[in-house]
C-alpha cells in the first residue's frame, strides 16, 4: 500500500504529465483528466490487481479497466506509464502521427494496458459489462473497473448497461463517475439537467457510493466498500465528487478547460503551482 503522501506525489506528477503532454501536442483534454487524476492514481497504485509485466488484452487472472470517457487519455496514459506499462518518455509522443498514444485509446497500435478502444461516449460501460460477464463465465475472480464522465452519462447506452449489469448480477463490476459537474458546453446542470445521479443509479439497482474524489482517505474508503460489494449480487457505482482542472487555480472548476490547451506562460504558472516531484518529468 502506498501512503497518502506517496499517492499525492504521484498525482502531482501525473497532473504535470497531463499539462506537458497537452501543451506539447497542442491538443487534448486536460480538464476531466485533472479531475480524475487522484481516482486513477489510487486505483492503479493501491487497488487494482494488475501486473504490467504479464499484461495481455484478455485480462486473464488480473483486474481490467475501461476508460469509458475516452477523451481523458492524458491522465490514463500518464498513470499507465507511471505504473510501468510503457516507458514514461513515450508520453512525449502523445497525439503525434504514428504514435501508440492516439488521441483516444486505441488497441490498433498495441499500447499495453488498453483493453478496448473508446472515445465515442457512452459505450465503455457496456464493454466493461461484457468483460465482467466473461470473467464470471470463466470463474475468474478478478474485477472490472470502468470510469465514466458525468456528461457522458447523458448517453442512453450508459443506462442500458446499467440495466444489464443489474440483471446479470455483475458484482465484480465497479463503475466510477468523475462527477465534476462540467462538460463541453457548460455545467452539466445547464446542459442536460442531470438531476440526482445517486438516486438514479440506486433506482437502477446498483450499490451506490458517494465519495470525495480529491481526498485519498475518502477514495480508499470508497474502493474498500466497492470491493466488499462482491457477493452482494449487485454492481457498484462510485460517484466521485471532483473538480474539473483540479490542482491549478486558473483551471479549476470551469468547463472552459475541458479541451483547451494552456498557453506557454500558463503552463509555466501551472507547473509552478503543482511543484516538482521526485519522480521527474518525462
Amino acid at each position, binding site marked *: 500500500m502506498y501512503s497518502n503522501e506517496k499517492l499525492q506525489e504521484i498525482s502531482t506528477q501525473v497532473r504535470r504529465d497531463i499539462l506537458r503532454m497537452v501543451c506539447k501536442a497542442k491538443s*487534448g483534454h486536460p480538464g476531466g483528466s485533472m479531475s480524475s487524476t487522484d481516482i486513477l492514481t489510487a486505483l492503479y497504485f493501491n487497488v487494482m490487481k494488475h501486473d504490467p509485466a504479464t499484461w495481455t488484452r484478455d485480462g486473464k487472472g488480473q483486474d481490467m479497466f475501461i476508460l469509458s470517457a475516452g477523451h481523458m487519455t492524458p491522465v490514463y496514459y500518464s498513470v499507465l506509464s507511471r505504473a510501468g506499462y510503457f516507458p514514461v518518455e513515450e508520453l512525449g509522443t502523445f*497525439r503525434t502521427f504514428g504514435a501508440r498514444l492516439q488521441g*483516444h485509446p486505441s488497441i490498433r497500435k498495441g499500447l499495453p494496458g488498453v483493453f478496448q*478502444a*473508446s472515445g465515442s461516449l457512452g459505450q465503455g460501460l457496456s464493454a466493461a459489462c461484457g468483460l465482467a460477464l466473461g470473467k464470471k463465465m470463466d470463474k475468474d475472480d478478478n474485477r472490472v473497473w470502468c470510469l465514466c464522465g458525468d456528461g457522458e452519462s*447523458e448517453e442512453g447506452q450508459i443506462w442500458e448497461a446499467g440495466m444489464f449489469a443489474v440483471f446479470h448480477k455483475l458484482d465484480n463490476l465497479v463503475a466510477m463517475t468523475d462527477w465534476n459537474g462540467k462538460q463541453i*458546453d457548460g455545467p452539466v446542470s445547464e446542459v442536460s439537467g442531470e438531476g440526482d445521479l445517486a438516486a438514479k443509479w440506486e433506482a437502477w439497482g446498483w450499490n451506490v457510493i458517494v465519495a470525495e474524489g480529491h481526498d485519498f482517505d475518502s477514495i480508499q474508503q470508497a474502493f474498500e466498500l466497492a470491493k466488499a460489494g462482491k457477493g452482494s449480487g449487485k454492481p457498484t457505482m462510485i460517484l466521485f465528487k471532483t473538480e474539473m482542472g483540479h490542482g491549478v487555480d486558473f483551471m479549476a472548476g470551469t468547463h472552459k478547460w475541458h479541451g483547451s490547451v494552456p498557453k506557454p506562460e500558463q503552463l509555466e504558472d501551472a507547473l509552478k503551482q503543482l511543484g516538482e516531484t521526485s519522480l521527474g518529468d518525462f
Partner: protein
Amino acid sequence: MKKYIDTGKKDTRSGFGVGLLEAGKADARVVALTADLKGSLKMDAFAAEFPERFIQCGIAEANMVGAAAGLAITGKVPFIGSFAEFVTGRVYDQVRQEVAYGKTNVKIASSHAGITLGEDGATHQTMEDIALMRALPEMVVINPCDFNQTKNATIAAAKYVGPVYLRFGRPSVPNFTPENEEFVIGKAQVMNEGKDVTIVACGHLVWEALQAAEILEAEGICAEVINMATIKPLDEETLLTSAVKTKAVVVAEEHNMAGGLGEAVAGVFARALPTPVEFVNGKDLFGQTGTPSALMEAYGLDAQHIAAAARKVITRK
C-alpha cells in the same frame, strides 16, 4: 487554366454557422439542436440570436434525432449538429427510421468529417458517413468545398423540403468560391474546362483537384475539374458530358473507398458510358492521430496523389 484565388483559409464549419444564422433570420421555422457541441458546430451566433429556437440535447444523439423528427412533424425546420460520426454511425437507425423513412424535414449538420479532424484519432474520424447516408432512400447528401459554399449550401438545405445530410470539416481550408452564389442541390459545377482527363471531387479535395490540374497543366495535360458538392442526387449529365470529351476520370474524396463519391461516379460510367476511372480516397483504412496535412499526405489525398492518378488513368484510355 481558370485561376482560383484562396481569399484566406477558413473552416467550413464556420461557414455552416454563418449559413445557419442567415437561414434562421430568413425563416422563423428554423431551429437548431446539438448534443453538447454548440461551439464545435459554430451554433453560438444562432443560439445568441434565437435562444428559444436553440435546443441543447446533452450528450444524447439518438434522442436528438428523434426529437428533431418530432419537431419537423410540427412544422419546424430542425438542423441537428454533432461530429460526423455521431450524427451518422452512432445514430444510423434513428436517422433511417425517424428521418429518412419517416420523411421528416430534418437537416443533419455533420462536422469534423474525415481524417482531417486530426489529433483526436480514429474514434472520431469517420470515413464511412457518405456511404451510410447515400444508402438511405431519398436522402440528399452534400459535401461543399469551402467556407462560402458551406454557408450557401446550408441556406439551400433550409429551403429544400426533405432530409438533407450536410457534411463539412474541422480544419481551415482555402476559401475560393463566390461569397453569395446560390447553391443548387443536385447541380455539379465545372470549375475548369479540360480535354484530357476529368477530375471529380467533393469537399475540400476540390481545392486539391484544382492544384493537381495546375501541376498537370505544367506537364501539358489539360484537366477538367468538377465540383460534385451534391453526392446524391448525382449530376449524371455533367459527368457524362465531361467524360465523352476526356475519356478518363479521377474521383477524389476524403472517404473510405467503399460507398462514397467514387463508387457513385463509377456506377454511372459502368452503366452509361464505360470509361476508365481511378480513385483517390482513404482506401479501406481507419484513420489515426496526426495533423491534418500529415494525414492528407499519409493517406494519399493531396494534389500530388490526384495528379498521379490522372497520369495513370490517361494511360488506360
